[in-house]
């Protein structure tokens, strides 16, 4: 379901952005989204990272 939602929204979003702000800037927006996802992955995926564990103990 989640994967299909992404496949539905992806082309729509990409098309809109490409027409509104151009191909290069559309890729910039996607790069920002990827950066945010990378940070979220670092915090949440695979258990808490060691930095947060040390602060608590």
């Amino acid at each position, binding site marked *: 379901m989640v994967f299909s939602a*992404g496949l539905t929204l992806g082309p729509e979003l990409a098309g809109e952005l490409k027409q509104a702000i151009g191909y290069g800037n559309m890729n910039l927006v996607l790069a920002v989204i990827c950066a945010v*996802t990378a940070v979220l992955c670092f915090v949440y995926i695979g258990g808490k990272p060691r930095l947060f564990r040390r602060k608590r103990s």
Partner: protein
Amino acid sequence: MRLLVIEKKVARRYESGDSSSVTDMNTTPSNQQNGTEDAEGGNDEERPLLGGKKEDEAAFKLSENQPKIARLIPILPCLADPRLLTAFLVAFIQAMLLGNFDATIPTVAQEYYNFNSLKAGILFLPLGAFDFILGPIFGWCVDRFGTKPVAVLSYTYLVPVLILLRLPHPGGQDQTILYGGLLALCGIGLAGIGAPSIVEAGTVVQKYYEANPDFFGEDGEQNTLGNLV
């Protein structure tokens, strides 16, 4: 090559009488108890590497009084976990990126280089080929290093590559080759983010299942999860 595959929970139904013969299924609670007994006996190989299994289990324990709807749809309390939600987000962003490339590559090829359908389709080759070839390698990396490093590194890698995609300009063959090369680099990134997404979601649900066997009953909610992803 497998000719016949029996799903674990189906096998469990038929093997329930004889637990001593079960060697392969390391997810049933009875085998967990055997594991902790061995650990207390000083068996170093059974000790987990990171943290403790008990501290892990405590994090996944659901409270006893759940509202009625949670009992009807067991996957709902799991959905409150940020780790599972982030796993869904990873899958969602991966699909979004795939959709993005599917939509924009043909139009860019047409506008910049006057490609017809066949040539625009050929432009998909570097993207798809690298995704296809490197998929198993990233799968091995997830098994070896865990989902976190692969996911974080792949998304971080994609940030400059996506920014570089603004470089190709309308022009001749050298611009085409540049675009194809950049798409190949994107294919590497896509292979990297494809590997951890479903693995992570499956791992989290498995941990919930192990920590709360009475809440989820005999059959796990693996099917519901599979449909959700």
